[in-house]
C-alpha cells in the first residue's frame, strides 16, 4: 500500500473541515465496503477520513427523526418506522452492527428505497458548504459529499419487501418500499439494475391517487424504471417480478390500515 494520510476527526465540524470539497478523500464509515477494497488493492486511498470518533452518531427521535451518518443499521432498525426498520434489519448480524447509514446510502444499499418512500432528506457538506435536500436529489448528485445526517417524518404506515439477495451482495435483486404519508401513498424501488440507485415511482403513485387497485397501479412500475440484466438476475425476470412485489407491498399496506 502506498502511504495514506489518515485523519480521525473528533467533532462533526472537524469532519466537515477535513472533508473540504471531498476530492481525493476516502470516507471510512463502518468500513464494511471500504476495508476489503483496500485489503485487496482495489482502492488506494490518498486521504482517509475515519468517522468513528466524529460524533456523527447522534439519533434524535422527535417529530422529525434525525439519524446521524455513522448510526449503525442495527441501531436504526431498533427505532425506525416501517419501511425503514425492515430495510435496516439486513440479514447479516455482524454487518448490521458495523455498517452505517452514510455508507449504506453510498453503496446502493437497502435503505435507499425506504428513505425515498419516506420523503427523507439528506444533510451533507462538501463544495459549496452544507445543504439539505431530498434523498433522491442527493443520490442523483455526482460530486463528493460528506453525509452528516438523514432526516425524516414518521409516516402513517409502511411496508418494505425485497427479493432476497445473494449473500454478501451490497444490493438486492429487487426491493420495494411503500409508505402512507399525510399526502398519499409513496412508492420507491431499488435493485432493478446494477449500480443504479433507488428511485421513486410517480406513475404508480398517480395511479393509486386516481383510485386504481394495488395490482393495476403496480403494473405502472415498468413506466418508472427499466430493469436490466446483471449478474444477479435478468431483465426479463425483473420485469416479471417487480410488479408482483410492488402489488404485494401495496396490499400489505392496505391491510395495515
Amino acid at each position, binding site marked *: *500500500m502506498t502511504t*495514506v494520510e*489518515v485523519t*480521525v476527526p473528533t467533532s462533526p465540524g472537524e469532519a466537515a473541515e477535513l472533508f473540504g470539497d471531498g476530492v481525493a478523500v476516502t470516507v*471510512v464509515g*463502518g*468500513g*464494511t465496503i471500504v*476495508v*476489503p477494497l*483496500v*485489503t*485487496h488493492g482495489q482502492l488506494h*486511498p490518498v486521504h*482517509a477520513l*475515519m468517522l*468513528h470518533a466524529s460524533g456523527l452518531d447522534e439519533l434524535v427521535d422527535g417529530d422529525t427523526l434525525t439519524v446521524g451518518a455513522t448510526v449503525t443499521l442495527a441501531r436504526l432498525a431498533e427505532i425506525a418506522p416501517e419501511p425503514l426498520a425492515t430495510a435496516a434489519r439486513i*440479514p*447479516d*448480524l*455482524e*454487518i448490521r*452492527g*458495523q455498517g452505517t447509514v452514510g455508507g449504506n446510502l453510498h453503496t446502493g444499499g437497502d435503505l435507499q428505497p425506504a428513505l425515498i418512500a419516506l420523503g427523507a432528506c439528506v444533510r451533507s457538506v462538501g463544495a459549496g458548504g452544507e445543504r439539505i435536500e431530498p434523498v433522491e436529489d442527493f443520490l442523483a448528485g455526482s460530486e463528493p459529499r460528506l453525509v452528516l445526517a438523514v432526516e425524516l417524518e414518521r409516516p402513517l404506515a409502511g411496508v418494505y419487501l425485497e427479493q432476497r439477495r445473494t*449473500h*454478501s451482495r451490497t444490493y438486492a435483486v429487487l426491493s420495494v418500499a411503500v409508505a402512507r404519508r399525510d399526502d398519499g401513498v409513496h412508492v420507491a424501488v431499488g435493485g432493478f439494475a446494477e449500480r443504479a440507485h433507488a428511485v421513486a415511482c410517480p406513475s404508480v403513485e398517480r395511479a393509486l391517487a386516481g383510485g386504481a387497485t394495488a395490482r393495476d397501479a403496480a403494473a405502472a412500475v415498468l413506466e418508472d424504471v427499466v430493469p436490466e440484466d446483471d449478474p444477479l438476475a435478468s431483465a426479463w425476470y425483473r420485469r416479471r417480478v417487480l410488479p408482483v412485489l410492488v402489488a404485494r407491498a401495496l396490499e400489505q399496506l392496505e391491510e395495515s390500515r
Partner: protein
Amino acid sequence: MKLVVNGKERLVAAGPLTPLLHVLREELGLVGAKAGCQHGSCGTCTVLIDGEPRRSCLTPVGAIEGASITTAEALGDPANLSVVQAAFDEHYAAQCGFCTPGMLLAATALIERKGGALERDEVVEALGGHYCRCTGYVKIVDAVVAASRGETGTRAPSTLEIRAAGS
C-alpha cells in the same frame, strides 16, 4: 496504538486502515481467527470487539483503539473446553474446523446476550452470516441450542482431551 486482546494489553504498530484480522494473525501471532474470504462474506474471521461479534477482516484497527478483543484462543483449551466448545465437540458440529472459530464466538456472544434457552430460529438468524462448507449446519444449530440450555458434558472424553491429559 493499544488493544486489549484476550485480557492482555498489546501494542500494535500496524497502520490504522489495516484490518484487525491481519493484526491478530500477523502481528500478534493469534491465528484462531481465520482468513477466509477477507470480504466480510464468510464469517470465519469473526471475533468479539467489546463483547459484540464483528468481522475482523472488515474492521480497520484504527477505529477500535483501546477496545477489548476476544478471539477463539480465549475460549478454552482441549482439557478445559468452554460450554459452547464442548457442545460443538459432543454434537460433531466441527468437521474441517475452518468456520468453527467464528461460529464459536458468534454463538458465545449470542448465548450471553439472550441469557437462556435459545430457539433454533434465533440461532439461525444470529449465525446467518457464517458459511460452513462441511456440516450442513444442522449439527452446529444443535450444538448452540444445547449449549444455551447448559446441556453439555454428556459424552465420553474426546481423543483431544485424552491426549491433552496424557501430555
